């Protein structure tokens, strides 16, 4: 049996109320006596009366107590459980890092609320999911203890993300009558119908490192960190820098204005490749430390075409970041090719191909059409003007990126590691090099190529970021190994941990979820050395965190669905009226009797 309205049990407070009324309404009996002098020396207790009369049982009293019990029964709306009923409850846990702060509270609330819901049906099936894609199912079963255990071992670490896919999955798993809670720490709205937000956050002050950049200034590598105060009052924090060798800077106290930022910076010590910036610990530890490495991206080397145009090509190449020229074709990562009009271009090596025209031609005319491709996405090629000089002969398999009329203006040729970006016009007879569209397309192509070069890269990344590195992902390729050193409070570097991932699964390899230095190796070769820092300012802001547990509506719905109401409520109403009527009649009779006996007022 369950109670549809547990608050109805408050009617039981009527029991002490009725007793109190009976105590208080029975007034002291007044009587004229001639022997008062015999009482005076007697028991001390008799010297003065007490306000509380000892309870004398009477029929009206018992009837009124019974009436209160019946009233409480009616108001509590008892319901009888259907033994074979099954309800499904799906919890989608917000995998955002901010949920770390609310985890203990979440466990406590779930024990309270799910325990109550579990009693509303014969069997309750729980499903616990993480809102992060690819995290799988945390728990599925009928035991609340299993849910609690899953939540206790769950580690939320992601930045802001879309919980929609997980919510839709939970919705479909729980069925149309199931309950789906999105467990988070803010009063958010979900776009998935039938999902209730179950917020367990609490507003808290937090101040941490919102981001770190490394720049080359005056020949020195300088790190710059942004300290952000998310609270509504100015706070004082002490920050320090610890070199990887363990040498620490002098702590420096700063005041960060309310909801403001403060930039601190310093140079990398001579010979230092990495350091840890730390501020005083608070409720959210992830942004209290930030590991930083002296970045060293993979530098691309290009072979230039020989001839009169080499100087201009060198100038172009050297103006691009981390891009240089090499004379050794064996060391080159790509080549710059000048193709004559109508010439065949072999797709043997990766490179960038430009047309070299001998004579002036009429401008190209026609509608500019940009294909959907990541190299040309959101770029405007409409302003590019070029002469219709003879271009590169098209091949089967070429992927055209930009058309002018029926002429392919920009195209891709060749497979992976041999891909060529072909600008099918003479840049010297065009304004293209002054147009952002062409420069950005070229840069995107170079970055794509940079990602294919199997050399070590040193960089600073976000916690949980995908490791997009030139790994071999075939089933026969060596496993990918990741090792990391987690950064603890105060910037203390922890011991080295590691794990191995099969090559075919390494495509989704991510940086550690917590601040750490880490390395990625494959086949004994280091691919990436990086520092992962938490830099999601949205997750670090707890000023609008709230608790919102609207369980009552769920409870009522489940109670209606899985139990039956008391079918005898009309009978109970009649019994209640009978009890009240009987009490009234008997009390009146007793009152008249008391008055005849000497003025005692009964109830």
């Amino acid at each position, binding site marked *: 049996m369950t109670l549809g309205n547990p608050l109805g049990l408050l009617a039981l407070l009527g029991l002490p109320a009725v007793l109190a009324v009976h105590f208080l309404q029975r007034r002291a009996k007044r009587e004229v006596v001639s022997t008062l002098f015999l009482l005076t020396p007697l028991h001390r207790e*008799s010297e003065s009366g007490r306000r509380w009369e000892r309870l004398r049982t009477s029929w009206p009293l018992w009837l009124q107590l019974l009436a209160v019990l019946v009233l409480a029964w009616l108001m509590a709306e008892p319901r009888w459980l259907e033994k074979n009923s099954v309800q499904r409850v799906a919890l989608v846990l917000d995998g955002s890092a901010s949920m770390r702060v609310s985890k203990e509270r979440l466990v406590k609330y779930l024990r309270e609320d799910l325990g109550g819901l579990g009693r509303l049906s014969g069997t309750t099936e729980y499903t616990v999911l993480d809102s992060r894609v690819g995290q799988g199912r945390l728990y599925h079963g009928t035991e609340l203890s299993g849910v609690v255990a899953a939540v206790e071992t769950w580690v939320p670490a992601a930045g802001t993300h879309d919980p929609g896919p997980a919510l839709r999955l939970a919705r479909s798993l729980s069925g149309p009558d199931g309950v789906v809670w999105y467990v988070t720490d803010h009063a958010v709205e979900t776009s998935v119908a039938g999902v209730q937000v179950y917020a367990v956050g609490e507003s808290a002050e937090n101040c941490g490192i919102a981001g770190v950049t490394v720049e080359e200034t005056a020949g020195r590598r300088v790190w710059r960190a942004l300290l952000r105060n998310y609270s509504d009052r100015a706070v004082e924090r002490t920050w320090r820098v610890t070199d990887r060798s363990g040498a620490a800077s002098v702590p420096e106290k700063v005041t960060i204005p309310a909801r403001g930022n403060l930039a601190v910076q310093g140079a990398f010590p001579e010979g230092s490749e990495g350091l840890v910036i730390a501020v005083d610990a608070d409720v959210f530890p992830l942004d209290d430390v930030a590991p930083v490495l002296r970045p060293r991206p993979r530098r691309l080397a290009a072979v230039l075409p020989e001839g009169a145009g080499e100087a201009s090509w060198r100038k172009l190449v050297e103006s691009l970041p981390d891009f240089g020229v090499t004379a050794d074709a064996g060391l080159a990562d790509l080549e710059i090719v000048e193709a004559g009009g109508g010439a065949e271009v072999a797709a043997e090596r990766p490179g960038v191909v430009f047309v070299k025209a001998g004579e002036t031609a009429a401008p190209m005319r026609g509608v500019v059409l940009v294909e959907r491709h990541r190299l040309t996405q959101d770029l405007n090629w409409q302003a590019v003007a070029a002469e219709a000089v003879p271009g590169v002969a098209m091949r089967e398999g070429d992927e055209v990126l930009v058309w002018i009329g029926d002429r392919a203006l920009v195209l891709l040729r060749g497979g992976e590691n041999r891909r060529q970006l072909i600008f099918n016009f003479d840049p010297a007879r065009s304004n293209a090099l002054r147009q952002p569209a062409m420069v950005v397309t070229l840069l995107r192509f170079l970055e794509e190529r940079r990602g294919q070069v199997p050399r070590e890269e040193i960089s600073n990344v976000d916690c949980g970021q995908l490791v997009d590195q030139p790994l071999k992902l075939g089933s026969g390729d060596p496993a990918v190994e990741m090792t990391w050193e987690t950064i603890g409070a105060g910037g203390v570097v922890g011991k080295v941990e590691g794990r191995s991932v099969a090559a075919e699964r390494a495509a989704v390899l991510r940086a550690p979820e917590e601040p750490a230095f880490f390395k990625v190796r494959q086949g004994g070769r280091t691919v990436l050395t990086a520092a992962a820092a938490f830099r999601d300012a949205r997750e670090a802001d707890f000023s609008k965190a709230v608790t919102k547990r609207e369980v009552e509506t769920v409870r009522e719905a489940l109670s209606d669905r899985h139990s039956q109401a008391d079918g005898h409520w009309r009978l109970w109403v009649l019994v209640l009226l009978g009890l009240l009527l009987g009490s009234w009649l008997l009390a009146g009779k007793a009152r008249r009797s008391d008055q005849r006996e000497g003025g005692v007022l009964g109830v």
Partner: protein
Amino acid sequence: MDEETVRGSVRAGAAWAEVFSLPLRGRAWRGVTGGHAGMGTGSSLDFQDHREYQAGDDPRHINWQAYARTGQYTMKQYREEVRPVVDIVMDVSPSMFFLEEKAERSVELLGFAVEAARRAGTSPRVWLADAEGVKVAGWEELESGRWVGGGVGGQVAMSKPPLVGRVALRPQSLRVLISDLLYPGVEREVMGWLGAGQARAVVLVPWTESEADPGWEGNMELVDAEDGGVHPRRIEEATLVQYRRAYAMHFEVWKEAAVRHGVMMSRVAAGRGFGEAMQQEALRAGAVETWD
């Protein structure tokens, strides 16, 4: 208690004087010539003694049989017959009248005492006494009923014993006190005053069951019948047990004082028939007698 009820109770008590009498027999009295044996010689039929003839003696009382045997004049002496003097003292304290049944019994006792004294050929004098003072009341006043509840001084008396000591009792009189004796600490004075001078005295004590064994329970507001003061009390069963013991002890003390001073004391219960109440204790104690 209204005046009509008082008159009815006086008459009802007086009617019982046909059955019961005051304890006037078996004792010599002083008074004017009457129907009861006096302390001296008189002209009654009751022979008392012989003595030698003296000049001036009534020759009708010469014992001629003795003169025939002895040759000397011997006089027969007969007991004097007198009308005893009866003083009736009525306690008119409020405690005597605050309960209907007790008030009726008290007034009945007064009516009985006066009528019984009359029937014995005496001239009773009735005194009304309370804490304010004493006064003599005539039969008409007694029958009028105005004296009930008004007190001697016309005011409600304070919770003090009636000032019976101010009553001018006549020597050798039969003293009848009608009082509930609900006063502590004056039993010796009252009984000593009644029995002074070898006088015969009777105390008739009206009482009720509700005084002896009250049904008090829980919180009570006890109003003193004497002064009207309100006294809140918490009454438990243990308190009642102690009260009953104190009540019984109170009258034991009075009885002991009565015995010590030769006073016949009898409690007369209210709430039951007058004859039954008188037979149960007053008759046994000798406080009243029957005519036969």
